[in-house]
């Protein structure tokens, strides 16, 4: 029994996906939106509609700003498929067939156009002991707060760089959660690298936000600057954090260590479908090659939001609208031009400063030999370096020899690290070395689900 051909499938109900869905449905397109979560919001607005009211006041104005968008999305005439993952996109004559997997079931959806708005994930933060229970991302702790009003119990240590860490410190402070220390790994030389982007930053929307966050975080949290080394210690679970700052080594007892050093685009679905991509040295991540409309190298397959390049929620929302307009125009429904494109440019202003200032230090991206870089298969940085020295030209060969990238996360947590380590070892750029070659399905499926996808013959 084949399904009707819809105009557009949007993968992801974060700010870009929601805004695109609303705009596309207004243009008269038949739209379906798929998201792994139980409701709208993606990661940044997680729990925006059904999260506990008790914490809402502490999460800040930026979070609250997502509510009207989520409400408009839930009211829009689009098909919402929650708790479902898009695991495979196949090109067909009239568009695409997308396999959706969820709740032990799978189905094939046929659409003319696809917009991937899969968002971002936190950069890997490979330090000794990062695989110990008790060590997690700052985003994971923030999700527990937003969606379940859960806060970590002491001692709690935050570590890394980038605005999300300061935001979390401020949110914890507002809720009376004691944080032993925030270990700031922002490299000492950041100012010189970021300075040329300062004028734009001063004119853009991030300055006021950043300064007030910083003030709030500083008031209530002990911030230790210039941290150049961190290790999580414990036997079977986290007990302490050892760190180096100003060439002095110190150790604090800790039960929870929250790591964060920025975010990177979630590209697995796009890469597995075959979109062209490249390495961005400015943002230290792989990014899809896109037209200004968001269209990828595969005609009819668009990307918008942070998965197209990290730029934050407001830029994501606007890029979702721009992509929806381009898609609608492709299907014969042109909208009158408005200020969206220039608002998008404005939302981007100041990003380059943030990217440069909070650029994660190389020793936290290319860790010492003993550190595990592929968590799933427990492959160390040293093993990857040895393979490069032995002649492996890139991550795919390293994968074949060591199994790195072959675990269930399919390289989501190790792809960047392995590419950077091998590039450095080979004296090449990560662009030349590339990312693991990915294949669908991009999330594990059971054989039963695969069987459900079989289409009738003829």
């Amino acid at each position, binding site marked *: 029994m084949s399904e009707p051909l819809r105009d557009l499938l949007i993968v992801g109900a974060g700010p870009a996906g929601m805004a695109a869905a609303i705009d596309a449905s207004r243009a008269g397109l038949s739209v379906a939106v798929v998201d*792994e*979560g*139980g409701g709208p919001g993606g*990661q940044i607005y997680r*729990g925006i509609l*059904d*999260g*506990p009211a*008790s*914490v809402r006041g502490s999460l800040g104005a930026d979070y609250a700003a997502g509510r009207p968008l989520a409400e408009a999305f839930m009211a829009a005439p689009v098909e919402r498929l929650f*708790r479902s993952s898009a695991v495979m996109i196949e090109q067909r004559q009239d568009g695409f067939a997308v396999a959706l997997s969820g709740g*032990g079931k799978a189905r094939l959806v046929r659409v003319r156009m696809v917009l991937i708005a899969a968002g971002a*994930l*936190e950069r890997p933060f490979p330090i000794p002991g990062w*695989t*110990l*229970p*008790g*060590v*997690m*991302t700052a*985003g*994971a*702790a923030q*999700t*527990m707060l937003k*969606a*379940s*009003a*859960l*806060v*970590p*119990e002491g001692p709690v240590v935050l570590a890394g760089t980038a605005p999300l860490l300061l935001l979390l410190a401020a949110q914890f402070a507002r*809720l009376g959660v004691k944080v032993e220390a925030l270990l700031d790994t922002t490299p000492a030389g950041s100012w010189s690298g970021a300075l040329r982007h300062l004028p734009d930053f001063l004119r853009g929307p991030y300055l006021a936000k950043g300064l007030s966050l910083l003030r709030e975080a500083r008031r209530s949290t002990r911030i230790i600057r210039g941290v150049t080394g961190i290790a999580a210690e414990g036997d*079977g*679970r986290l007990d302490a954090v050892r760190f180096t700052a100003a060439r002095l080594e110190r150790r604090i007892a800790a*039960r*929870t260590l929250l790591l964060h050093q920025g975010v990177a685009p*979630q590209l697995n679905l796009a890469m597995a479908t075959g979109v062209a991509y490249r390495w961005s040295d400015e943002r230290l991540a792989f990014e899809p090659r896109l037209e200004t409309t968001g269209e990828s190298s595969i005609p009819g397959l668009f990307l918008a939001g942070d998965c197209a390049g990290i730029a934050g929620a407001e830029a994501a929302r606007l890029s979702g609208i721009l992509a929806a307009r381009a898609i609608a125009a492709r299907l014969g429904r042109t909208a009158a031009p408005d200020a969206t494109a220039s608002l998008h440019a404005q939302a981007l202003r100041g990003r380059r400063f943030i990217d440069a200032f909070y650029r994660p230090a190389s020793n936290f991206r290319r860790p010492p030999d003993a550190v595990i870089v592929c*968590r*799933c*298969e*427990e492959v160390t940085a040293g093993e990857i370096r040895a393979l490069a020295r032995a002649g492996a030209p890139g991550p795919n060969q390293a994968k074949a020899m060591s199994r790195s990238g072959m*675990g*269930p*996360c399919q390289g*989501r*947590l190790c792809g960047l690290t392995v590419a950077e380590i091998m590039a450095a070892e080979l004296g090449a750029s990560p662009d030349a070395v590339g990312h693991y070659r990915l294949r669908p399905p991009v999330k*594990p499926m059971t054989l039963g689900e695969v069987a459900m996808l079989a289409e009738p013959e003829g």
Partner: protein
Amino acid sequence: MFRRLHDPSAPVRITIDGRSVAAAASDSVAAALLAAGVTTLRRTPVSGAPRGLYCGMGVCFECLVTIDGAPNQQACLTTVREGMAVETGGARPALSLP
């Protein structure tokens, strides 16, 4: 490890390794586990090393637990249900052959 800021308003009862705990109806299984003080969720197939929640958003696959007999479910992407049975430690399902 993690504590609730307030008691769940509409509690749901689930079992974690046979132990009955209260969870909030909107909790992910991961949240319920953290609130119940369970930090080791599985042991790795490679070395048997203990692992717990890491990314909280479904990309790292560390939070794999057995839910109502189904192995390798991502706890952070699954919402609790009344009577749900969660087992940690990792399970290898028995293959029943004819």
